[in-house]
């Protein structure tokens, strides 16, 4: 019976640590893209046109019902075909492209819900008051509504980022070498003898990243809340991970 090998884990750290950056980069890019499209989607959900609303809500409920890995494969196999219809011959796209597209689809869907709840929670009166005091629609949004919205949305956004990071662990399935992909490579290089040790390290790294993201966003949340009642800030700053 093979015993559990702590030394092996310690020696593994320098081999895996650089790949957390790959994971983080994918998460960051898809989060930013997701925030952009999520904002648009939130706007569509509050649109006055019924069919725009329907499409936006339909998209979100479709994403909510589809496992990430299935959507990843569909994107991976469908994009070259769709590209072929438009005459792009055998597009040699990097695998991270497909990963980012799929992650963005999920991030946009989740963030749009958060943005919408936050926007509704801020209240109409704030916008009306801002417009009355002579701000333009744009100024009212940037200076009055957005900061209050973010204060409400940030704890939820932290959850979205963490679930985005956990979805990123699946992109190895299309052959992208991130933290998980590298772990799989190391696992097969070691003839699958040290599987448990390798994945314990991967789990610890993911845990660390999640705690880090949560910590950073909690600090940001407190920073955003500096103009609000400090007692209220303390009460609502609780995290989930």
């Amino acid at each position, binding site marked *: 019976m093979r015993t559990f090998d702590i030394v092996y884990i310690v020696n593994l750290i320098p081999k895996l640590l650089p790949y957390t950056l790959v994971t983080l980069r994918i998460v960051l890019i898809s989060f930013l893209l997701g925030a952009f499209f999520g904002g648009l989607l939130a706007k569509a959900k509050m649109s006055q046109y019924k069919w725009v609303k329907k499409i936006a809500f339909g998209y979100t409920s479709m994403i909510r019902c589809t496992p990430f890995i*299935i959507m990843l494969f569909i994107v991976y196999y469908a994009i070259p075909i769709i590209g072929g219809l438009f005459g792009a011959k055998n597009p040699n796209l990097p695998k991270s492209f497909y990963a980012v597209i799929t992650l963005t689809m999920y991030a946009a869907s989740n963030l749009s819900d958060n943005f919408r709840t936050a926007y509704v929670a801020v209240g109409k009166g704030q916008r009306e008051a801002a417009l009355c005091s002579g701000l333009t629609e744009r100024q009212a949004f940037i200076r009055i509504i957005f900061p209050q919205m973010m204060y409400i949305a940030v704890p939820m956004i932290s959850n979205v980022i963490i679930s985005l990071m956990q979805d990123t662990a699946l992109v190895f399935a299309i052959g992208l070498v991130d933290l*998980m992909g590298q772990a799989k490579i190391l696992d097969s290089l070691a003839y699958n003898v040290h599987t448990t040790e390798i994945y314990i390290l991967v789990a610890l790294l993911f845990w660390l990243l999640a705690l880090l993201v949560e910590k950073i966003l909690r600090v940001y949340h407190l920073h955003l809340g500096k103009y609000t009642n400090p007692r209220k800030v303390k009460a609502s700053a609780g995290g989930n991970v």
Partner: protein
Amino acid sequence: MNLDISFAFETLIQIIPGIPVTLGMALGALLIAVPLGFLLALIRVNKIFIIDKLAALYVSFVRGTPVVVQIFLIYSALPAILNQMIEANGWQLDAYSVPPVLYAILVFGFNTSTHLSEIFRSALLSVPKGQKEAAYTVGLNAFQAYRRIIIPQALAVAAPSMCTASMNMLKNTSLAYMMAVMDITGRAKALAGVGYQYLEAYLDIFVMYLILCLCVEKLFQIWEKRLLHYKITA
């Protein structure tokens, strides 16, 4: 390369036997997750010395790591541990013949239990303290107070989040193919591998999960309505 519609239809019919496997996995996982999640929530709400810190650590770890990593961990570590136990106790069992579905149920059960524990915890905290005190005052014991007073109110709060957690778990079961479970995904992948018609197969899985998830959502909505109905008439 084009979409092969007839293949997609054939596959759709052939993966139907995978539905009971997927649903069975999800139900089995819920059977583990609901009691365990409730226990964890109770430990943390009542702040039992040291155990609540351990529970918090467990919840944080499981929630902070992706399900795939948990799958690989359990699937690699558990058979070895089981084997050691069997050798030590001299049982007449083969550790490597345990069907992978059981490991899948364990992974998804443990994973969902942490999500549910957070949901239950906030739901239990949302019931005002006075309710429990009032229940004790009229002579109920702790079990009766929870059973008749606190849990019905907490469930009404928790139901929407429980729906989300269950749906996430159902979606995660699509990863069970990594443990060679022949669920919807496993079947479709096996069929697709023959003619390299992966897109059609994945679209089939997509449709299947869409239907399953919408059904689950509908069921939860009905259940939620009943809970609220109970709350209003009470």
